[in-house]
């Protein structure tokens, strides 16, 4: 019944589209917008006909298509950081253009800028943020490591979880509910160094987009957000590069033509060197090591004016180690290793079909692997060569094979239609253990245990959406997404309607609303609090139903002084089902070996909130102020007596102030202040004594002091706030430019709570107190960057 109804809606949309097509004689201007210096395609550029008061923006690959009546027009093309172009065109037939925009080299004052930066004010899509990479690079960050995800945390309704983490908890969602795409493929663990840094190297990134609600039908498989990272394509005209040296890592990016104006490449790498710096100072019997690296690669080839192929790759790894010897220099040793890596590779073929259609086909594979290992070797017996070596390692993996085809069809100015299909083959290996014991004089023991083996599941989806101009001031995006999931022992389906409405009340005021229903077939089996690399990705299956939910959002948007200031107020209501959570006392390390359904609880979640976002978009002083009031709860039948309780990251008030001030053409200063009311903590409310466990003595000579944990998350941790500063000094040289940056994180040295926990001291009456672990106090940073 529901399917039939949706089919009727789709048919009506198509009929309406066709009617639009034949109703008038029209011509189409289509093409690409490129950077004049590098021929890099510019996405999100505005292409408009001011006299007719309509336009479009380039898609993710710089393509645009604009249909109008034959006439002489003035076409305006603009994008942030580029000189806008206003061109006269006489349109008599379909026309293809390659528009090149020159980067701005001088500051423009507010008056000169007509349409400097594409604004979401005019778009149907709501709850969307796009922060320019250039702006991200100048914000203060921990240890001077530019981090895109940490910048996203400064936006309303985006929580970081524990302090310093790059995790994202969007509008009451969980960490696994974010669809994090790198050139169209998902990355499962976007963290370095336990989340202190994200894996995205700003030198290699062209754009990042965050969608918190009103998800377009082309995105699916996650409930809470879409974070879309697009890598740079590589300079088609000349060799160029960028390098930076920071406190804990350095990065280098190099790009250039393979065949001038036809093929190009980009390679970017980053490596931490804290392990190398520490090495000379670790002379005792204990040694620590921590290192990460990542490499981004991209190449593209223009096959014809209509065809282009892209090859993208990413590889990143984290590795931590701890080694202990009985005394310095001893041969006997025990070593612990822990690490994870992400691998990603994709091949994309873009084709322009006629002047009004664009197709993009993607094949790709993404892999995430976590490992932990113990190695020990010690001398044994009395012989000189006698030894015992013991190695045990634990691995968890997930591999996705993805194929996707997306079409964009722009029949006329009243419709922008997208449709496509997606297929993913998931392969999970949640836990395997390799054990080896090698003892002199004995046969080695080698044991591989893979209790679950590889588990495969398939996910397929079809979608269609149309952004329609129904009236001059009314635009609607209607979409539908159909998905099906085949697990090894169960099948699930989903019908996900998506709707976005835009009403332009006046030149300065707009109202938007959206509805999105989503289903998520993969789960991250994690503790309610901290997200670890040890968390397991598991598929939906018998007794583990998919996560599903819907979000309703509405907002009002106000623009002042030609978009110099924009103010938005949004409210949202979100309901989620199928949350999974470890049972109380469950050991996450056993999860790879046991039946997951026996380890978890399944529950529901609810979140609602209001966001205020005030942004100054141009001028010497830019930045924003964001405020969020939110409430997020969870409910599990076997937790908290079945009663609803605050989510672990339920933060009632959240404020962020982000400011950048351009002192001169070569000097910038930026500051960030954030405030968040305390997170809920589940702590003991009562205490008692017990004689102990099995066969405990009946007397009270050695009583155990136990706690009654009481209701879930009834207490609140102290509030969180901090102030960060940074200054950037830029100099132009013959060979390029260099930027010297200094900054400080947590400038007033606030001891913010990272974890709050009870702790017992065995002093007579066994005093139990609450402790807070504060990690990131005042941290200075320095970095030096060059680009050429």
């Amino acid at each position, binding site marked *: 019944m529901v399917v039939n109804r949706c089919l009727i809606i789709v048919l009506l949309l198509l009929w309406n589209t066709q009617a639009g097509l034949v109703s008038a004689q029209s011509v189409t201007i289509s093409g690409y917008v490129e950077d004049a210096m590098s021929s890099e395609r510019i996405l999100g550029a505005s292409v408009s006909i001011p006299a007719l008061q309509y336009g479009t923006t380039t898609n993710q690959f710089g393509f645009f298509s604009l249909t109008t009546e034959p006439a002489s027009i003035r076409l305006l093309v603009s994008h942030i950081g580029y000189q806008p172009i206003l061109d006269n065109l006489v349109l008599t037939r379909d026309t293809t253009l390659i528009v090149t925009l020159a980067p701005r080299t001088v500051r423009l004052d507010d008056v000169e800028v007509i349409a400097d930066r594409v604004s979401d004010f005019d778009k149907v899509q709501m709850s969307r943020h796009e922060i320019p990479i250039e702006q991200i690079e100048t914000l203060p960050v921990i240890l001077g490591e530019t981090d895109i995800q940490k910048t996203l945390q400064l936006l309303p309704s985006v929580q970081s979880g524990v302090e310093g983490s790059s995790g994202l908890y969007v509008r009451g969602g969980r960490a696994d509910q974010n669809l994090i795409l790198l050139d169209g493929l998902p990355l499962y663990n976007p963290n370095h160094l*336990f989340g202190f840094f994200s894996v995205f190297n700003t030198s290699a990134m062209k754009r990042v987009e965050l969608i918190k609600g009103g998800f377009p039908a082309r995105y699916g498989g996650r409930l809470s957000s879409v974070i879309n990272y697009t890598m740079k394509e590589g300079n088609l005209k000349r060799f160029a590069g960028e390098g930076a040296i920071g406190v804990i890592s350095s990065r280098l990016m190099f790009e250039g033509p393979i065949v001038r104006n036809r093929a190009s490449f980009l390679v970017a790498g980053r490596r931490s060197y804290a392990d190398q710096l520490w090495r000379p100072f670790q002379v005792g019997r204990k040694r620590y090591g921590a290192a990460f690296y990542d490499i981004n690669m991209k190449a593209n080839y223009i096959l014809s004016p209509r065809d282009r192929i892209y090859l993208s790759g990413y590889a990143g790894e984290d590795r931590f180690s701890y080694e202990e010897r009985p005394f310095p220099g001893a041969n006997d040793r025990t070593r*612990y290793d822990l690490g994870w890596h992400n691998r990603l590779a994709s091949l994309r073929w873009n084709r322009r079909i006629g002047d009004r259609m664009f197709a993009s086909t993607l094949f790709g594979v993404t892999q995430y692997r976590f490992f932990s290992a113990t190695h020990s070797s010690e001398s044994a017996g009395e012989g000189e060569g006698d030894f015992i070596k013991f190695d045990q390692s634990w691995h968890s993996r997930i591999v996705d094979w993805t194929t996707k085809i997306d079409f964009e069809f722009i029949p006329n100015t009243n419709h922008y239609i997208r449709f496509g299909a997606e297929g993913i083959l998931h392969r999970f290996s949640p836990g395997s253990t390799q054990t080896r014991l090698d003892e002199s004089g004995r046969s080695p023991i080698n044991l591989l245990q893979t209790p679950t083996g590889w588990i495969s599941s398939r996910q397929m989806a079809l979608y269609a959406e149309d952004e329609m101009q129904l009236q001059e001031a009314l635009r609607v995006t209607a979409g539908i997404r159909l998905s099906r999931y085949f697990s090894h022992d169960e099948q699930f389906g989903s019908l996900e309607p998506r709707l976005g409405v835009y009403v332009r009340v006046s030149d300065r005021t707009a109202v938007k609303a959206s509805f999105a229903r989503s289903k998520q077939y993969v789960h991250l089996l994690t503790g309610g609090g901290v997200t670890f690399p040890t968390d397991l990705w598991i598929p939906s299956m018998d007794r583990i139903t998919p996560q599903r939910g819907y979000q309703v959002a509405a907002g009002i948007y106000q623009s002042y002084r030609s978009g110099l200031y924009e103010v938005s107020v949004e409210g949202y209501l979100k309901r989620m089902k199928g949350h999974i959570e470890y049972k109380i006392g469950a050991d996450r390390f056993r999860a790879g070996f046991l039946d997951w359904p026996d380890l978890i609880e399944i529950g529901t979640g609810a979140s609602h909130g209001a966001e205020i976002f005030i942004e100054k978009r141009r001028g010497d002083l830019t930045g924003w102020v964001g405020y969020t009031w939110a409430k997020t709860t969870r409910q599990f039948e076997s937790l908290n007596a079945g009663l609803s309780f605050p989510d672990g990251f339920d933060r009632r008030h959240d404020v962020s102030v982000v400011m950048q001030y351009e002192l001169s053409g070569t000097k910038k200063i930026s500051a960030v202040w954030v405030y968040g009311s305390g997170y809920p903590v589940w*702590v003991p409310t*009562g205490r008692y*004594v017990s*004689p102990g466990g099995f066969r405990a003595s009946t007397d009270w000579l050695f009583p155990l002091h136990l706690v009654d944990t009481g209701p879930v998350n009834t207490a609140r941790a102290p509030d969180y706030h901090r102030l960060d500063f940074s200054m950037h000094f830029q100099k132009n040289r013959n060979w390029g430019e260099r930027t010297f940056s200094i900054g400080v994180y947590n400038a007033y040295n606030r001891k913010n709570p990272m974890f709050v926990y009870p702790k017992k001291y065995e002093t007579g009456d066994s005093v139990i107190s609450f*402790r807070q672990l504060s990690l990131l106090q005042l941290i200075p940073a320095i970095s030096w960057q060059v680009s050429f």
Partner: protein
Amino acid sequence: MRQCLTILLFGVFCGCETIVELDIPSDYQAKLVVESQFSPDSLWTFRVGKSVPYTETVEPSELIVPDARIIISDENHFRDTLQHIGGGIYKTLQGHRPVSGTTYNVKASASGFSEVQASSWAPPLQSELLEIESMEVGNSSDRERYVLRFSIADQPGSNYYNLNLYQVMPFCEDDNGGVRIEDGPSYTTNYWPIFFDSNSPSFHAFIETVDDPIYPRIENEFSGAFLSDQLFEATTQEFEITFEPTVFEFVSPYFMLELSALSDDLFAFERSLELHDYYLFGPDLTRSSPAVVYTNVVNGLGIFAGYTSDTYRFDAKGNEWQEDSVAVGSSNLQPCQ
């Protein structure tokens, strides 16, 4: 892996720890804490206490509830009201003992507390000591090693077992009042747990891993073991352990094998206590939630759970012996020489 992650995380998170005051709801309702781990070998005994708000620090003796009314009953006509004999301990005066396989219900009330109740049983246990023999041991012929075989007839459903092996050893009292093992002609003997080996995958050294039937391990040595029946559900399973006794000049090798069947409740309580100990040690970042101590006492805290034990006493030749024949714990400790 837990050890690995904990060590590495400690290195990463070696930040600043400070005491904080939390705004904890002040309306905490004190609860009755009822505890009885019963077996057919002992009379009905309970300890009854109370919980207090977390912020209060009190002596254990201040938490005793002396005026509770404890009624124990079964599904048939058995009913006994226990009497307080001091120190928060309640005992049957009728000489009643739990019967293995019978489900019991307890109700406890005291002024100022909600009435609490719980039910549990002592699961039946069918075990048999099959054989003990001396085995050849490689080059070290002077150190004798024994192999012991026994069987468990598992009942349908989820069952948990505990296994301990003891040797009778001589004890004496040192100058500081401590107890130590030392050979001597007149020292008091008592039981001392000894290590044993087993290749059985059902054996687990730690209660945390018992639910995992194929927990990867490389060490086969145990000082007490927990078993679950996941690998021998509702069948009779034979087990083999080997051990090496401690040799004394004046005390002959006498052994005792103690095999217990634990109720689900007792197993869950025992397991949660181990986790709870970690929890109060400091920030265990690898845990998903606070370690809640298991309770089956409705409206209260504590544990009401049973177990059944079979005890086998044997010497090196497999002969059965009695405690009085080897004077186990029969006199006060002698001073160490």
